[in-house]
């Protein structure tokens, strides 16, 4: 199938969809926009004090809060530059290298949820939990397939759906009446440990509405099994930056990214793998503990901390496991001057 044929067939598929910009549709958009504005004004009028009070009350109710800040992977104030990596392997050539300053404020599409990360201090490959709290825009279809039930510290009776797509890897999801969803993705915990963890969760703010504007997402925790703690998973306050390099051998391609968002960057890659039912395994890259994931579509991805807050990720295309191992073994950290030359030589005109 050629590219024009693909284009034509996509147009055929979509041709039957009729959605004219009617007054009714415009009114629906207007209602949503008014909801966003109204709730935004309410948040601004309430100020931060109300949220602080709500958080404090939730923490008191839960009795235990996560020891944020105890994780050694916090930002190093002395680390002013990101490490730079290259693929130093026979037959592989660097096709692209660039330094990118991300500007999330330019695309301030409102957040619709939160992500919390739990693991043992400094142990990237050990028991890990990714916890999401998402706003929901739709009603819940009542079906009798719940596979786990528990009661949270605030007395909420939860019926959740729990599956183990890979041995030792769990996906769990529950809904609060269509207002919000909770999702847990984990590896390295037993089913009993995961259920104990989930039973200790209460939302900081139970009053989540859709579309979400300035909601206080996240959970307080009462039970942290297997020695896991919450690690900071917030975007840096400044402008996030990345050092990106693409290398290939004519068949396979490796995209190497070092990102100063640390845990956020690592989590964004691994949650996709775990949520899709992929596999996770520990490996060592550049003498550092790393996680190697393989998505169900065969895509390999390796991620680790190359520096205190410099999360390194290598995503492979058209690569088998032997190639993945060879590339990971062939990675080399570049001196600053060498990176400057490499990125400068390939800078866009």
């Amino acid at each position: 199938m050629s590219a024009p044929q693909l284009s034509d067939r996509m147009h055929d598929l979509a041709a039957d969809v009729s959605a004219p910009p009617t007054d009714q549709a415009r009114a629906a958009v207007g209602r949503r926009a008014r909801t966003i504005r109204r709730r935004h004004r309410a948040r601004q009028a309430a100020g931060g004090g109300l949220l602080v009070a709500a958080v404090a009350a939730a923490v008191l109710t839960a009795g235990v809060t996560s020891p944020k800040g105890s994780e050694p992977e916090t930002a190093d104030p002395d680390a002013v530059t990101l490490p730079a990596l290259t693929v130093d392997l026979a037959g592989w050539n660097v096709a692209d290298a660039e330094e990118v300053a991300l500007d999330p404020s330019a695309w301030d599409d409102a957040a619709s949820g939160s992500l919390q990360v739990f693991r043992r201090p400094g142990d990237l490959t050990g028991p890990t939990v990714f916890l999401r709290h998402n706003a929901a825009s739709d009603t819940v279809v009542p079906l009798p397939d719940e596979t786990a039930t528990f009661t949270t510290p605030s007395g909420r009776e939860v019926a959740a759906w729990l599956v183990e797509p890979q041995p030792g890897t769990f996906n769990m999801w529950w809904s609060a009446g269509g207002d919000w969803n909770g999702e847990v993705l984990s590896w390295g915990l037993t089913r009993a440990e995961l259920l104990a963890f989930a039973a200790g969760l209460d939302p900081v703010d139970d009053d989540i509405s859709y579309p979400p504007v300035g909601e206080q997402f996240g959970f307080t925790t009462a039970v942290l099994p297997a020695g896991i703690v919450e690690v900071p998973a917030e975007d840096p306050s400044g402008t996030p930056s990345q050092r990106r390099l693409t290398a290939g051998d004519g068949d396979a391609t490796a995209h190497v990214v070092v990102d100063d968002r640390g845990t956020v960057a690592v989590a964004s890659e691994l949650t996709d793998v775990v949520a899709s039912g992929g596999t996770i395994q520990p490996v060592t890259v550049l003498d550092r503990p790393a996680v190697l994931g393989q998505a169900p579509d065969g895509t390999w991805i390796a991620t680790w901390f190359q520096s205190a807050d410099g999360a390194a990720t290598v995503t492979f295309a058209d690569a088998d496991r032997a190639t993945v191992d060879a590339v990971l073994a062939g990675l080399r950290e570049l001196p600053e001057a060498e990176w400057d030359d490499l990125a400068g030589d390939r800078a866009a005109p």
Partner: protein
Amino acid sequence: MEPLGVDGRQDSMSSPGSALARAQLADGPEVDDVRLSGTPAATSFDDLFRRRYEPMVRVAYLLVGSRAEAEDVVQDSFARVEVRWARLERPEGYLHRCVVNRSHDVLRRRRLEQRFLRMHRDESEELRADELRDALARLPDRLRAAVVLRFYAGLPEREIAEALNVRPGTVKSRLHRALSQLRQEIER
């Protein structure tokens, strides 16, 4: 059938981004560039809404596979654009970004529902049976978004990169992988 641009009108205008995509994809005849790259910017939110609502519903439909959810995605996206209208230098780019993000939300939620709820869907609202539909559904979200934005919406690489928050090189790679996977799925 003549392809339509995202604003619903025919066009054969090419762009530097699409030329790069052709060079990258290389193993087939050139794709028609269906996007009106030279279309004047929207003069007001209502102007944008009138011109882009239905085309964006079709884009969302190809991403999420359900007309009702596609309209929900697009109405939510337009609401976000309306609220931020005065601050947006390129409202269309922001709209694309919102539609992709909201579509990903829908797909992620649906995967959960299918995994946990075995949700029964109204088949009459779904994409009709089609090998391309099936092949698209099997693509990872990030590849599906790239291929729909390129080959249905006709966006150049730099605009796809903006919509997906990745660099243009990553768009090239995703398009290459998406096409390879689609060919394998359809031709086997």
